[in-house]
């Protein structure tokens, strides 16, 4: 282990260039720590985004040596074996500055995918009885722990090619709701997620699955939507 890391960091907005820094290596050091070190000790104008520091908020994701990753939980040893790091903002999102992205499109697409609960009961009713090992509940549970980090969104080429594509995270959310027995919005949702902005645009590249830090499988969710929308289409419900 050499005692410094050679880091190239993206500077600027959509247009910009890489800038090189040398950062001392520490035994406990994440990629976020490397970026922080640069801001605190070398160039105070370096911009990046983070909040929770522990993989819960999904705001620190960046492209690290070509791959999208959450940086607060990516140990340097894991990605910079040869002592070099190249850090740039996530692909497929607008860049605010340097490593910080604007996630507005990503959130808007969650909404467009009807990725929100449509209630059938109110606060004056009791909890629904839902058996934990009910198959639908299990399907919902498999996909529910998304932190909205947009790593999958950044790993998917279809998002790049088709600007309207809702993307793996939004579709994954829609699928949890399709399996949520308490939800009443499936008709609108299936229409929203069908079509060439929706699940049918996915070609199972599976970059989403490969890179999701939470080990979710948007691909699986999307194939579920393909089947569900096909059924709806055959019944004339779309």
């Amino acid at each position, binding site marked *: 282990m050499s005692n410094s890391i050679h880091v190239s960091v993206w500077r600027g907005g959509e247009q910009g260039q890489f800038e090189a820094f040398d950062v001392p290596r*520490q*035994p*406990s*050091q*994440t990629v*976020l*720590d490397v970026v922080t070190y640069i*801001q605190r*000790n070398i160039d*105070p*104008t*370096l*911009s*990046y*985004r*983070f*909040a*929770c*520091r*522990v*993989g*819960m*908020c*999904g*705001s620190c994701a960046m492209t690290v040596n070509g791959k999208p990753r959450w940086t*607060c*939980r*990516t*140990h340097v040893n*894991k990605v910079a074996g040869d002592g070099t790091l190249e850090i740039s903002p996530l692909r497929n999102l607008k860049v605010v*500055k340097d490593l*910080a992205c604007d*996630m507005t499109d990503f*959130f808007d697409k969650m*909404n467009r995918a009807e*990725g*929100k*609960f449509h*209630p059938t*009961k*109110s*606060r*004056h*009713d009791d*909890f*629904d*009885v*839902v*058996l*934990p*090992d009910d198959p639908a509940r299990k399907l*919902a*549970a498999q996909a*529910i*722990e998304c*932190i909205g980090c947009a790593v999958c969104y950044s790993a998917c080429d279809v998002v790049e090619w088709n600007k309207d594509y809702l993307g793996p995270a939004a579709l994954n*959310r829609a699928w949890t*709701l399709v399996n*949520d027995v*308490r939800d009443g919005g499936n008709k609108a949702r299936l229409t929203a997620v069908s079509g060439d902005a929706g699940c049918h645009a996915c070609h199972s590249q599976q970059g989403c699955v490969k890179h999701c830090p939470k080990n979710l499988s948007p691909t699986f969710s999307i194939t579920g939507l393909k089947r569900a929308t096909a059924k709806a289409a055959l019944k004339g419900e779309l």
Partner: protein
Amino acid sequence: MSGNFTIEEHRTDVLVLGSGGAGLFGALHAKAANPELEVTVAVKGLLGKCGCTRMVQGGYNVALAPGDSAERHFMDTVDGGKWINRQDLAWKLVTEAQVRIRELENELGCFFDRNPDGSVHQKAFAGQTFDRTVHKGDLTGIEIINRLSEQVWARDIKRLEDHRAVALVPAADGSGIAGVLMIDMRAGTFRLVRAAAVLLATGGGPTMYKYHTPSGDKTCDGMAMALRAGLTLRDMEMVQFHPTGLIAGEDTRITGTIIEEGLRGAGGYLLDGNEERFMHKYDERGERATRDIVSRGMFQEMREGVTAKNGGLYITMRHLEAPLVRKSFKGMVERCADCGFDLVGGLVEVVPTAHYMMGGLVFEPDCTTEMAGLYAAGEDTGGVHGANRLGGNGVANSTVFGGIAGDSIAATIKPGQAVPDVDQSVIDATMALCRQPLDRPAGRIDEVRTELWDHMWDDAGIVRDAASLKRADAKLIELDAQLDTVGIAESNLAYNLTWHDWLNLKNLILVSKGIVAAATAREDSRGAHFRADYPEVRDLENSTYTVVNLKDDKIQLGTKPVDFSIVKPGETLLDTDAA
């Protein structure tokens, strides 16, 4: 100086500051009660992605099950709060939580964990006489905030993301609030948002301590703005420490983040630097004693100097069955592994870590404050938890009162209602304050941060006494002056984190002064507040609480008697036989 600095103006009916449980519930309730209201959420990061509600692991306290009751939850809360809670607030918390949790589940779509029979699961959490914590695995906060955010995105609620509030701006005629001065962080410019009502929900956050759990965006901004606006904070000496934060050196942001309490519950050992257990010296329950006792025990051990390499202690599970540990604490094991630690078979270095501020802005059960038009909810407020917050009462607090604030606002504010003229002098003064470092050559603000962290930790942290608080007080004055000599290059203010670090420190130092003043005033030990020179709880029946505010740039201190409006010390609302 500020002449060439243009301010953009923006008008809205309701401005919500912060997108935690309190802020988002405030926005949703205001909008639901009156869809004609223009509601804007301004937040220091991205909506729903920052703040601590998202980080809630344990869960949400609410009395639902047969055998439990609001009364019991209330008694646990007041007992835990060591009787200085404002009881009408605590009562509001426990009763309204019963509605809010169903709203979360039924209307917003949170999918809380169930028992095998399909009813909602409630788990045990320390300090409670009943298992009442509703949860979604150990990622309850993500579920809550994701579901809230989705609903906000779907509504006509305006978003001002990457917008930092820097001052509560009163009306020129003194009639109440008239708006909030903000920095548009992306552009590095100021923006004045004029609003008929403002909800302060920026979530406190004791990040002035060397080791702390909250997210990086939380730096007591709300409390600092409230102090500068002449408002009163209470219970500021009450800072809760969580016993097991990770410690991995000063250069990693991982330091301070929580390792789950359940590890101790499951039989984990705490070891000193010589790998020997020590907790039994402090409590017969050993590692399973309550948060405050374990934190103090650890702090004592660390003072005695038998520490691990980063100055902390160890937690270990290696004497337990590896597959079991791996299975029961999957999330924690993975998190540790990502950061280079082996939780299953090795030693993980830990340290107590500042977690939550029980103190905050004085407010009423309907979330109004001293300033007309200003509402407050969540961790920014004080009085609900008293001297200690029960695990699981934090998110209940922010969601309950956030919703109430939204309702109160909608009941008072009319869409399009005239907003009074702003007090320009406050805007000028705030801009001058914010721009202060920009006129100077760049300097290192790191030293100020590290010193603040160290001194608050050593002198105003888990264990305090008159002498240490005095040192802390002097140091804070010195650090404030030192911060005023640090410069930030003005050329590039767009998303300039270092500028915001400066502003963060400015606020943290101010609020730290409040903590130190209140801690100096309270000459007994209660809940989270431990005075080595007054180690006993004193005179419960005549309990007082502390209040601080700012006059002429100086912290003013006061104490007020607690009004036992519902139950007195020694009494209970419970039918004692039933327990």
